[in-house]
Structures are given as structure tokens and as C-alpha cells.
């Protein structure tokens, strides 16, 4: 057992947590793009039908090829997630199955099949079903991605703010009262709004970066101009809305999960006469203080309680073994907020450029937009880490400890599977990302082809043209 004995020194629960965090973070990247992109495609096709301008149709086809690749990777990484609950978190599954199982089953029935059903028509059916029906199919796919997000975020929100349950003799959570109480649990509306807006913002940053890239090469390209302009409108309008939604989500968290807010704010100590807003610093969990803190006195009370002198409890009111890991939550929250304000800055910069009629002629703006291209993904993952790590040490907040949720597995089993996931994901999704970047590097042009001429794929993902220039087989 020499080889596997190495792993015995690791805690299988920690390994299982790393594995879940790894697989869900990888997975989350794809839907956070495809939710926004599906809506963008619906807008492009709608504008084409309304105005008849071919620029919208060509942009639609350009982004449709990219959507197909993103959706493919979302599907295969998503199948893994639907089994991770049982493989690594079997006690959690047994106990929450009666409540969360039906919500996830509804996600499969109402969202996955809707997406699968209409994706084929969306990708290949333009010539088969006519424009209006095709537009309807595109809208259905966009609706499917939204329904999917709704169910899975309801599940996630219930884990954060569980309601409408009783606990039976076996210690299982069972539904009590209305299912609406379970589905519309207290944090769900805020989390749904914040996440869907994040997806739109992420998409607008990617579209903006691709537009900016092609503007730097040829500022007269009408397709690059159109996509850049649309993306910058979106960023300028949605970034402030997102900051507002995030603030409201934060107030909701303060009400239901105060320890998470304490960790986000770095408030080790209670502040009876107004808490400072710590902008930066290094959380020191051993000494229970934030070292080198740069702080604004009483600003935290102002933001969270709308009162400079409002008292705020700190982590000193929470037993040590019920505290979330402060440093991770503290930092991930600052990464998310910092990037959020950078996105707002980009939006404002674009408004300035627009007002000077220099939107397409200001290379600094274009370079900034390219740099900001991937930041939506970083912010989404950082926000996800903030809310999930901030939920610790529970899987069902206040009810079920993470340390009591895991499968009865030995460390070697979890360690080997974790390594397998890391190797396979980096290889497979690395290749996929490279193919995506190659597609995005091709300048959008007039007469963009539909994915394949012959509608072969119904429930799957269309192949984009081969990247190395090999001609596609003729019909």
C-alpha cells in the first residue's frame, strides 16, 4: 500500500471539498457565459428580424459558433456535477434529497430538455423552419438557460437560507408546508438577480473584448464596431445595476447569515459604536485581527445599517468552530468588488468616449476592454467563493455541518479522483478554451456561415469550422 499510504495523511473531507470546489468552479465558468450569450443571440436575431440589417445576422452567426462550443463544455462538466453530490457528499444527499432532489429533477425536466429540444433548430434550422419559428427557438434556448439557473440557484439558496422544512426520525430534511416556501427561500431572489446580472455582465465584457481586439486591427470593421458598441452599452448600464443588486444581496446576507458578512468585512471584533469599512489589510486569524488595515471609520455601519453609529457584532460573538474561514472570504470578496468597480469604470469610460464620438477611435479604451475581457469570469468565481466558503462550516446553513455531510470514503479514493479531475479538466477544457480563442480571433465578416449546412445536430452542439483551414466536406 506504499503508494496510497501517502494519501492517508490527508483529511478526506478536505479533499472532497477541494474536488467539489474544483469541479463546480470549472463548470460555473461555462453557464455564466452561455446564459448571457443565449440572451445576446436572441437580441441579435430579434434586431435582424426587426430592422432587416444583415450586420445583425452575421453577428448572430459569428457568436452562434462560439456559443456551441461553450454549451458543449457546459454540458459535459455539468453531468459530473449531477453525480458529485452522491459520490462525495452522500450523507448530505440522503438528508437533503427529499427537498433538493425534486428541485433538481425539475431542472432536468423543464430546462435541460427545453435547451436540448430547441438548440438543434437554433443551430441548424434557419432554412428548415423559417425566420420567426427560428427566432422562437433561439428565445426558447435562452429561456432554458434562465430556467436552469433559476432551479439550481433555488437549490443553492436553500442551502444558505433553508426554509419550509421539518426533520424526520432519520435526520432527513423533509418538506413541511408549501413548496413555494422552499423554492422562494429568503436569499433566492437576491442570489438569482445577482447571478443572472453577473452572467450578462460577463458576456458583455467578453463580447466587448472581442470587438475591441478587432477594432485595434481594423477600426472600420462594421461588425467589430457594432458588437463593441452593444457590449459597452450593456456594461455601462448593467455594472451600476449589479453593484446595487450586490448591495441588496449583502443586506440580505447580513440578516440571514451574519457570520458571512463578518468574515467578508474582516470584523473579528464587535463595534458597538459604528464599524469601520476595512478597504485592505491582511486577516490574521491567529491574533483575530486585520493587520495593516486601511479603513474608513464607521463606513461599514453606514453601508450595512445606513447609520454611522449603528453597532455591529463581530466574529467574537460566534463560537470559533462555527466561523467561516475569514481570509478566503475576505480576499475573494475584495476581488469581486474591486473588479465590479473596474467594470463600472470601463462602462463610464465608454460613455465618455461615446460623448466625444471616439468610441471606435480610442485605442486606450480598446486595450482596457481587452484587459477586462476575462474579468467577468474572475469576479463570478470570486463571488461564488465568497458565498460558498462564507457558508462554512455548514452545508445547510445552521443545520448540517460540512464535516457531517461527506461520504464514508477513504482518503486515497478521493485523492486519486481529485488528481484525475485536475488532469482531465485542464487537458480537455484547456483544448476547448484554445479552440474558443481561435474562433474569437477570426474577424467577423459579411456572409458568416451557419454552423453546418445540413441540420444534423438536434440536441447537441454544432461543430464550428475546422480551425486549421481544412475545407469542410461538401454536401
Amino acid at each position, binding site marked *: 500500500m506504499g503508494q496510497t499510504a501517502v494519501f492517508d495523511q490527508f483529511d478526506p473531507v478536505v479533499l472532497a471539498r477541494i474536488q467539489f470546489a474544483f469541479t463546480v468552479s470549472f463548470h460555473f465558468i461555462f453557464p455564466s457565459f452561455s446564459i448571457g450569450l443565449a440572451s445576446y443571440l436572441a437580441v441579435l436575431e430579434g434586431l435582424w428580424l426587426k430592422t432587416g440589417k444583415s450586420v445583425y445576422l452575421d453577428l448572430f452567426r459569428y457568436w452562434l459558433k462560439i456559443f456551441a462550443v461553450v454549451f458543449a463544455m457546459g454540458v459535459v462538466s455539468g453531468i459530473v456535477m449531477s453525480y458529485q453530490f*452522491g*459520490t462525495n457528499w452522500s450523507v448530505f444527499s*440522503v438528508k437533503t434529497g427529499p427537498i433538493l432532489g425534486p428541485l433538481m429533477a425539475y431542472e432536468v*425536466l423543464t430546462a435541460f430538455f427545453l435547451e436540448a429540444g430547441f438548440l438543434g433548430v437554433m443551430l441548424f434550422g434557419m432554412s428548415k423552419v423559417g425566420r420567426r419559428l427560428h427566432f422562437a427557438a433561439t428565445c426558447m434556448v435562452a429561456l432554458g438557460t434562465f430556467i436552469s439557473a433559476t432551479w439550481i440557484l433555488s437549490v443553492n439558496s436553500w442551502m444558505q437560507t433553508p426554509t419550509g422544512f421539518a426533520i424526520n426520525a432519520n435526520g432527513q430534511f423533509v418538506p413541511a408546508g408549501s413548496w413555494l416556501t422552499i423554492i422562494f427561500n429568503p436569499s433566492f431572489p437576491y442570489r438569482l438577480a445577482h447571478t443572472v446580472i453577473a452572467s450578462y455582465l460577463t458576456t458583455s465584457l467578453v463580447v466587448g473584448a472581442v470587438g475591441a481586439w478587432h477594432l485595434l486591427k481594423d477600426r472600420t470593421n462594421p461588425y467589430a464596431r457594432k458588437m463593441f458598441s452593444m457590449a459597452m452599452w450593456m456594461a455601462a448600464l448593467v455594472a451600476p445595476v449589479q453593484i446595487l443588486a450586490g448591495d441588496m444581496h449583502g443586506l440580505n446576507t447580513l440578516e440571514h447569515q451574519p457570520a458571512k458578512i463578518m468574515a467578508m468585512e474582516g470584523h473579528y471584533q464587535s463595534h458597538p459604536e459604528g464599524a469601520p469599512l476595512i478597504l485592505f489589510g491582511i486577516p490574521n486569524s491567529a491574533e483575530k485581527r486585520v493587520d495593516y488595515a486601511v479603513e474608513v471609520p464607521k463606513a461599514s455601519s453606514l453601508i450595512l445599517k445606513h447609520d454611522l453609529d449603528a453597532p455591529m457584532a463581530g466574529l467574537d460573538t460566534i463560537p470559533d468552530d462555527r466561523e467561516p474561514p475569514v481570509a478566503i472570504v475576505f480576499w475573494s470578496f475584495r476581488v469581486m468588488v474591486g473588479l465590479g468597480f473596474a467594470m463600472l469604470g470601463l462602462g463610464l469610460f465608454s460613455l465618455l468616449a461615446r460623448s466625444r464620438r471616439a468610441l471606435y477611435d480610442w485605442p486606450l479604451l480598446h486595450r482596457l476592454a481587452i484587459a477586462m475581457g476575462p474579468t467577468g469570469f474572475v469576479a463570478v468565481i470570486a463571488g461564488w467563493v465568497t458565498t460558498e466558503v462564507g457558508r462554512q462550516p455548514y452545508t445547510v446553513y445552521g443545520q448540517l455541518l460540512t464535516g457531517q455531510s461527506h461520504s464514508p470514503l477513504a482518503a486515497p479514493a478521493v485523492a486519486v479522483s481529485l488528481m484525475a*479531475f485536475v488532469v482531465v479538466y485542464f487537458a480537455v477544457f484547456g483544448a476547448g478554451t484554445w479552440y474558443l480563442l481561435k474562433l474569437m480571433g477570426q474577424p467577423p465578416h459579411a456572409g458568416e456561415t451557419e454552423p453546418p449546412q445540413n441540420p444534423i445536430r438536434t440536441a447537441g*452542439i454544432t461543430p464550428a469550422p475546422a480551425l486549421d483551414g481544412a475545407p469542410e*466536406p461538401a454536401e
Partner: protein
Amino acid sequence: MAYNLDLTTIWAFIIAFAVFAYVVMDGFDLGIGILFPFFAVGEERDQAMNSIAPVWDGNETWLVLGGGGLFAAFPLAYGIILPATYPLMIAMLLGLVFRGVAFEFRWRDTRHRALWDVAFTVGSVVAAMAQGMILGAILQGVTVTRSVAAGGWAYAGNWLDWLTPFSLLTGLGVVAGYALLGATWLNWKVEGTAQAHAVRLARVLGIITLVAMAAVSAATPFLDYAYWHRWFEMPGILLTVPVPLLVVAFGFSFFKSLALGSERLPFAIALGLFLLGFAGLGISIFPYIVPDQITIWEAAAPEKSQLFMLVGTVVIMPVIIAYTGWAYWVFRGKVGTHGYH
């Protein structure tokens, strides 16, 4: 109580239906992955790939429904079977990842097509083998222990308990069976040398699959749990006697239909063989969900959960079936040599 009993039984049948739908639908496209190296690079492989390109993704959605349905309707079984077969589950998922992206990437990156073709085959073989071994692991029984802390019962074995000669046998049986489905599907959907190839493979695979079914059936009574009580005593014998007789009859007609050059009948008969095998498993296991430890009623979610889902399933499932049938109808007939890509 009688009402609750019915609801749980209905859910057992719904999950069984989803699993069967998955097994036969993803079965033939996994089978094509398994057989891929036997087809020539170029037109033969492209035809084979194109024949399943429209449907494989929809096929795989049934796996998510089967897993999600088990989690929702029988959470205790989900929480026991998945840890009990942990390395197999992980291998299956990773196999499906490789195979799913290989479908797309082989068309996008023609320089590395050979590499993605290997990923397609290896991923398909691993996924099929893992699924077959999961079946064997469940049949041979898993060690469970009473545990209130774990929600009633918990898996109590080691992480390699599933690895036995029996589970290897069921694994190979499923690989052979999926390959049989794949070969007969190709006989129906492709032309030329690829079809001739498929027919030759189908003959060999028909023999291997029947031998594997016989071997698994012969080994099953010797497992810890006394399956033979169910098989050879009243009233079970009324059900068990017709199954092997039908398998023999199906076997004869399978080879006859191949010899006569029928294109659709061999695939239909292969589906029939799977249905008989599935029925045999049902007779062996029902009403247990973890043989012979936990019944469907012990593993069931509360009535309120099962009822809430049933309402949605009754409304939505027919729509899904209608769509799936339509998708297959749209792509009826031979795939053609030019392909779709």
C-alpha cells in the same frame, strides 16, 4: 398507506424507465465509440460518427434524469450506491467527458483528429465498462450499516469492494452488449463498406453478448444473496421461465435476420435482448433497491416529495418523449456518405 405504497412503486418504475431509456439510447452511441477502431479512417468513421451526432447529447440527458430522479425519489439509495461504486462512477464521468468533447473537437481540429478519435474510443469503453461493473457491484450486494447520523443507512464497505470477477463479467457483458447495439445501429444507418463491416461485427458481437448473458445468469444464483429463491420458486418461476426461452428465440431470429440482410430487424432484436435482460434484473431485484438490504419503500423520499415531482413528470415526460421521437424521425434513413460536417 396503500396510497404511499403505490406512489413509491410508480417512482421505481419511472426511474427504471429512465435508466432503460438511457441504457439503450446511449448504449448504441457508446457502442459506436467502442467499435470505432474497427472502422477505417475517413469515410467509414465519418459516417459512423455522423449517424449519432444528432442524437447522442439528448441520449445522455437521460443519465442526468436517472441520477437526478434517484436522488429525488430514493435519496437513501443514491447516497449508498454512489459511494459504494465511487471509483467506477468517477471513471464513468471522466469517460463521458472525453467522449463528449471528442465528438466536437475531432471536427474542429483536423490535425489532431486521430488523438480525439482515441479519446472517443477510450472514453466510450471506460464509460460502458464502468456502467456494467456498477450493475455487477449492485447485484453482488453492498455492505451497509444502520446509521442515524447518516440519515438511516450508510455504505460501510471499502473503496474497492466492487472489484470482483463477477463485476468484471458484467462489465464485459455491457461493453459487448453496447457494441452489439452500435453495430446493428450502423447496419441500419450507414452504407457501403462501413455497413458490411458492421454486419460482420454484429454477428460476432451477437454471439459474445448471448454468451455473456448466459454467464451472468449462471453466476447470479451463486452470489451471496439467494437470487435462486426468487427465480426457481413460485410465483417467481412463472416470470423467470419465459425470459430465457425468449432470449433463445430472439437469438435465433437475430442471426436469421442478419443472414437475410435485414437492416432494421437486427437492431430491434438487440433492443429486445436488452429489454429481456432488464426484465430479468427487475425480477431479481424488485422490490429491493439495494439487494438485499434496502427496499424501495425504505429508501423512498416522503410522499410530499414524490407527489410534487410526479405532477411535473406526468406533464413534461410525454413532451420529452414526443420531442425525442421527432428528433429521431427528422434524421431517419441512411446518413449518407457526405456527412454533415
